[in-house]
């Protein structure tokens, strides 16, 4: 078999944090390579390197034996690499045919004009759609077809340029069972035609059933690439989890009390979360673990009143809590550190001081005109930021944008601290920040718990949950599927629960 793509010691770091380190893999024609690893293991970065989305710091790639150095995604596409993303790259306002031919339309001379040869486009699109098993008219616009069908259109588009390597990154997350089956059949068919495929998935049983060889990644490094026969689900998980937990986490300095702070009873939002029962005690850090799309973030948003729910109730500090809008949640003593601090956590272009003062502004206001007591606000903000050891210039002038990720996250935490909340919901509070800053954030969490606050700690990094939490609750497909006390923490068991072993399709 001939090697289609080979990477040689590829490395890529973001802001000094290595995302991919010395990774060498190869994919052969007519083979499916399964790529597995935890979130943040570096799978997506590796694929972005191959797809020309980001550029390697060091290392080389070769395609069909020739040196390959894509400058941008269009370059990679023209070289015959089809990247089917989690988020699809189709123009929803254009037709299937227009999407397939967007790079270059076949034209015809008509007098002085070069016109698009509509009938050629139509016929060619029909042929391509037939190849991927889609019976849709070529002039249908993308916004009228389902996510699964869109994925097949992407594949048809790749077939149109005669791609030799197909990269599928978590393609089944938004697909129905039938669509998934159809996709798998098509993958087998492409394989039979001698195409090379890289298949990334969290559903390990699917990977086992489809792949010819499997590569496991962890912390940016390739742990192994071996034929599929050498693997079972258990071995894959042990390889993915890897090293044991050392002193990346501060000692927990307090014990949770037996007082219930938050009691979620049977909360259900159709198609999002189902019958959620969850308790957080005072001084307790409860981890909420789940894969992407498991509903953990959605649950957090519901509990804070950003999104609504249909049935069930939430009791906060022994009082029934009508979740309505964030403003009410804040009044009741809930804080929400969102997973995306740029979009929902901070006002990037505004000063650090303004950002921190925003949530607790009512505290510093004198009626009737709501005049802000500037001095009082400033001294509180200053005090809180000092406690968090924020490194910055003049907080009244410096915009948040100019801070590092870790310091930005401290600003987010500071602004919630100022409103003195009883319950903290923290969604991925350490995402994208370096190890040192992570440790500082963990220390703050421990102090918060020590002062009697409850923390609901959402993360896709199992290690940090095991390092910090008193209890870990596991979610999958919108439901709570397991709960582990600190003494019973076991990475394999938690991952097994999250992956819902035995429930995969194939």
């Amino acid at each position: 078999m001939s090697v289609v793509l080979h990477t040689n010691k590829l490395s890529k770091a973001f802001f000094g944090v290595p995302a991919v380190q010395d990774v060498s893999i190869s994919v052969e024609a007519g083979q499916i390579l399964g790529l597995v690893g935890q979130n943040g293991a570096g799978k997506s970065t590796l694929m972005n390197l191959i797809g020309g989305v980001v550029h390697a710091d060091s290392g080389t790639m070769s395609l069909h034996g020739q040196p390959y150095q894509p400058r941008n995604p269009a370059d990679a596409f023209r070289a015959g690499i089809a990247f089917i993303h989690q988020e699809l790259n189709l123009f929803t306002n254009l037709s299937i045919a227009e999407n397939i031919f967007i790079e270059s339309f076949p034209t015809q001379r008509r007098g002085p004009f070069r016109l698009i040869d509509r009938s050629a486009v139509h016929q060619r699109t029909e042929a391509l759609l037939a190849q991927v098993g889609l019976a849709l008219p070529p002039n249908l616009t993308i916004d009228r077809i389902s996510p699964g069908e869109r994925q097949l259109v992407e594949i048809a588009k790749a077939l149109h340029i005669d791609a030799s390597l197909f990269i599928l990154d978590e393609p089944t997350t938004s697909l129905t069972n039938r669509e998934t089956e159809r996709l798998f059949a098509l993958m087998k068919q492409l394989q039979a035609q001698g195409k090379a495929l890289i298949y990334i998935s969290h559903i390990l049983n699917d990977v086992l059933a489809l792949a010819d060889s499997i590569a496991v990644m962890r912390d940016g490094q390739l742990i192994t690439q071996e034929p599929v026969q050498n693997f079972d689900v258990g071995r894959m998980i042990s390889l993915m989890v890897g090293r044991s937990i050392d002193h990346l986490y501060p000692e927990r300095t307090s014990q949770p009390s037996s007082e219930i702070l938050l009691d979620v009873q049977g909360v259900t939002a159709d198609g999002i979360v189902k019958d959620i029962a969850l308790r957080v005690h005072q001084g307790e850090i409860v981890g909420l673990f789940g894969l992407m799309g498991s509903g953990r973030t959605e649950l957090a948003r519901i509990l804070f009143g950003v999104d609504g729910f249909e049935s069930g109730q939430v009791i906060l500090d022994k009082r029934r809590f009508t979740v309505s809008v964030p403003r009410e949640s804040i009044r009741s003593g809930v804080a929400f550190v969102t997973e995306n601090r740029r979009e929902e956590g901070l006002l990037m272009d505004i000063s650090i001081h303004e950002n921190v003062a925003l949530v607790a502004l009512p505290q510093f206001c004198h009626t009737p005109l709501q005049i802000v007591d500037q001095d009082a606000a400033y001294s509180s903000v200053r005090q809180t930021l000092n406690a968090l050891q924020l490194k910055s210039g003049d907080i009244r002038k410096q915009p948040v944008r100019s801070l590092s990720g870790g310091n930005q996250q401290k600003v987010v935490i500071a602004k919630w601290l100022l409103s003195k909340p009883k319950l903290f919901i923290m969604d991925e509070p350490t995402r994208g920040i370096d190890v040192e800053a992570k440790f500082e954030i963990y220390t703050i969490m421990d102090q918060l718990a020590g002062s009697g606050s409850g923390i609901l700690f959402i993360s896709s990094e199992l290690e940090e949950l095991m390092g910090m939490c008193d209890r870990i609750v596991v979610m999958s497909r919108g439901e709570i599927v397991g709960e582990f006390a600190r003494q019973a923490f076991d990475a394999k068991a938690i991952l097994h629960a999250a992956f819902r072993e035995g429930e995969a399709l194939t």
Partner: protein
Amino acid sequence: MKTRPLQSLLRRLLISEYFVLYLTIVMFTGAALIFPQVGLSNTLGLPFNISNQFLNMWPLLAVAVGQTFVLIVGGIDLSQGSIMAITSVVGAMVMSSALDPAMFDRSPFWGTLMRPEGGVLSGSPLAAPVGVLLMLALGIGIGFFNGFVITRFRIAPFMATLVSMIFFSALALWITQSRNIPSLPEDFIRLGTGDIVSVYLGEKTESTIPRREIFSAIAYPTVIAFALAIFGSFLLNRTALGRHMFAIGTNRRSAHISGVPTNRVIILVYMFSGFCAAVSAILYSARLGIGQPSLGNNLLLDIVGAVVIGGTSLFGGKGSIKGTVFGVAFFVLLLNVLNAARLSPFIIDAVKGGIILLAALLDVTRTRLVGQEGQL
């Protein structure tokens, strides 16, 4: 990066809040030298012209303060001109003391609200105060309607206020059948023209001074517009409302999650915008002595232009009333210079457009420079 002294001066000048003020002074002095009509050639021309230009500035300033608020929350209020027209017409309709049947007998309100002997409050001592309050209330009401439509139905501000603009402009024309409403009470007219402090330049040789040689230094419109600007600046910088406005304009989702009552703030802002338009309508109508259905017709470009020149960003989250005051001064004096140069109205509009483009470029350049600063 090493910067030479000249570069760094230029840079500081560009970032400075007072850039537009400097620009205004340079432009005006330059123009006064080139076009004698603007100033210096005769001793009385300059103060007369300046005093006149200030009178032009106050109503524009009043309405621009409201637009500044709307732009800061990331919206736009296209309906301000129409709010001015409808409030002017409705106020005048109530206050007028004589209406000519030959002009108004085709109005839908002829014989009910409009009669030959004037409006419902014709001749009453309450005509002016009630008229003013009615105009303000109407402006605030239309602003509320705009804000409500924008927040409740999530219609783009551009669309919602465009609808208001067309509707209320048409309503003003329909009520008056395109005629100006005359005979407004003296008390009201004083709001637009009355002097509080006047200046006479020159030797006092005669016992009486001709009216045309006395220049108003502080007039009612000066006080009213300034009070509004100061109130606006106070709201913006000192109150929770102001802080919330900047938060919404910078990132509405972040603001919402941080507990900012986004919808309430946005509605309040459009109400304030309507209020400012009504104040402006009062100043203009009083100065002209009529209720004018075409008031504010071509003012939109001037308002937005002046505010943007003053450093308020069309993308929201940035702006100040101080900047708007400078922007309005710049715009009014620019117009004065263009008129003095005897350019055709078409060219004047083209130049106005060019100036707004430059202001937008300035906005982008400033953002970039400030961004570089942050990384140092």
